[in-house]
């Protein structure tokens, strides 16, 4: 009997101890942007101050993009989507930070997300928040939403200042408008391990210059606008996008 009493006390103690150390908290993420390592903010817009890998000087006039299914995966491979969608608009300074919709136990996780919307989520007209900011893709291109709208100007070989519209969407071949052929050009971004603790802020970095160089050297003189219906351009943009994101600093 005495032994049982001791066992109960020990079990209660262990149980209480475990409850006390499992701390839940919301996850905080900031989005930062750079051009080959130099920070880019709204104040850097509208001037031809950036040079891409192909040598064109360019400006940023509008820069907004969508990521989705921002996910933390724990050591037991259990996935938790902490935010279903995040529209980041650098020029309007909207969406540059997020706080998770759910609280997570402190610990180590893998952080990942989808750039754009995968085919399962890229449904036409269903997201009121995205409709309200005119981020839609026309039905003639299969509908759904832009993944990125990057508008600006560049100095081309014609010596003029030209406009460009680097708009990323799901690739669609509409050679036969009655039989659209799609390729899901959204992609998964796996940023590796992070530690959730003490309300730390996790930085997700985007190097904007990467959109123009890796793996395909982008020539704005030939690919500058009307890229939405250009299947091959969308495939190239998707490939270049895979190297733009990285994990930045974790700050208290």
């Amino acid at each position: 009997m005495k032994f049982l009493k001791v066992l109960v006390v020990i079990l209660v103690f262990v149980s209480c101890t475990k409850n006390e150390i499992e701390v839940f908290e919301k996850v905080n993420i900031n989005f930062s942007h750079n051009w080959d390592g130099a920070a880019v903010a709204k104040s850097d817009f509208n001037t031809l101050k950036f040079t891409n890998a192909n040598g064109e000087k360019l400006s940023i006039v509008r820069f907004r993009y969508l990521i989705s299914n921002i996910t933390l995966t724990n050591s037991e491979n259990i996935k938790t989507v902490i935010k279903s969608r995040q529209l980041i608009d650098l020029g309007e300074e909207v969406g540059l930070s997020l706080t998770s919709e759910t609280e997570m136990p402190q610990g180590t996780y893998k952080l990942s997300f989808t750039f754009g919307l995968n085919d399962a989520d890229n449904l036409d007209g269903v997201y009121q928040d995205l409709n309200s900011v005119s981020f839609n893709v026309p039905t003639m291109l299969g509908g759904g939403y832009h993944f990125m709208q990057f508008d600006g100007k560049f100095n081309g070989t014609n010596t003029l200042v030209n406009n460009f519209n680097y708009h990323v969407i799901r690739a669609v071949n509409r050679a036969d408008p009655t039989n659209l052929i799609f390729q899901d050009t959204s992609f998964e971004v796996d940023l590796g391990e992070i530690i959730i603790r003490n309300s730390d802020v996790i930085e997700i970095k985007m190097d904007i210059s990467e959109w123009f160089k890796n793996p395909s050297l982008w020539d704005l003189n030939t690919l500058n606008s009307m890229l939405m219906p250009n299947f091959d351009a969308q495939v190239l943009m998707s490939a270049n996008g895979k190297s733009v994101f990285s994990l930045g600093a974790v700050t208290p």
Partner: protein
Amino acid sequence: MLFSCSKESKEESYVSVLAPLQIPTLFKNLLIAPIIPSNNPQTQEGITLGKKLFFEKELSADNSQSCATCHDPKTAFSDKRRFSDGIDGVFGNRNSMPLFNLAWNFDEKFFWDGRSIGVERQALQPVINPIEMHNTWKQVVATLQSKAAYPELFYKAFGTREIDSILVAKALAQFERTLISSNSKFDQYLEGKVQLSASELNGFNLFMDETKGDCFHCHGSDKNPLWTDNKFHNNGLDALSIDIGLAKVTGDPSDNGKFKSPSLRNLAFTGPYMHDGRFSTLEEVINHYSEGLKASPTIDPLMKKVSLGGVQLTPEEKADLKAFLLSLTDLEFVGNPAFQEQ
């Protein structure tokens, strides 16, 4: 009880009746909720008062002009004249903007240059503008206070008989938020009630085609039936902007020549077009985007084929685009008795 803490709290309080906006099904399904300030909820009494004030000529210094003078309900609350003249006969330099679906202006920037944040703040401006009503709020308040009907109407709307400019603006804003346009032929088409003609359908496709009209990036779509992004763009009207628009508000030269995209609803009534009413007809507007663009340092990158002057539509395409644009005409809105002077 909406105003139990008002100065009238010792009296028997009047309870105003909440009157939430009747949100069209299309808007409810596609858009986020409209913007209603928490300190100015829609009430029946507030809307009634706002409507009376909207048509009240004694808001102007010589009792000759009301809001409706330059925002005529029969023209979707716009002015058929290129510029409106104020009580002293002085003309402005901007075309009067139509008024509808204001609660869905999610950034809440009003006027062509976005200089007022919120409908209430916008409503304060014309009364004291020297080239519009050229009055003072002190005088307006005194005038309204002295009239038999108004103190009681303000009491019913806001719980006080002491009139001030803020309450006038709040009432006007409540009425203006009820000006909802959502029943055009194209709306009915989206709801499956009518069919579009072949020309209208082709025009819609041109509107949505990035390689043709590419209008949707700035002017909404079937998924954003406001038919505006309510943002500011330089749409290539001038190589050198005399009226610098948004830049005068922000002080940023990169905003030179930027003006708010107007809604394309009710174009049948809202001409002349552009911020300065330079185009009398829709044909002129379409020709501008097709062949008339002028390059400038701040022209929006969304303007296509600027070096060619524009998107180069054929005469047939222009006709189809016009047919589609006119399918956004909402006859019910301009004829709605709730919006007319009684």
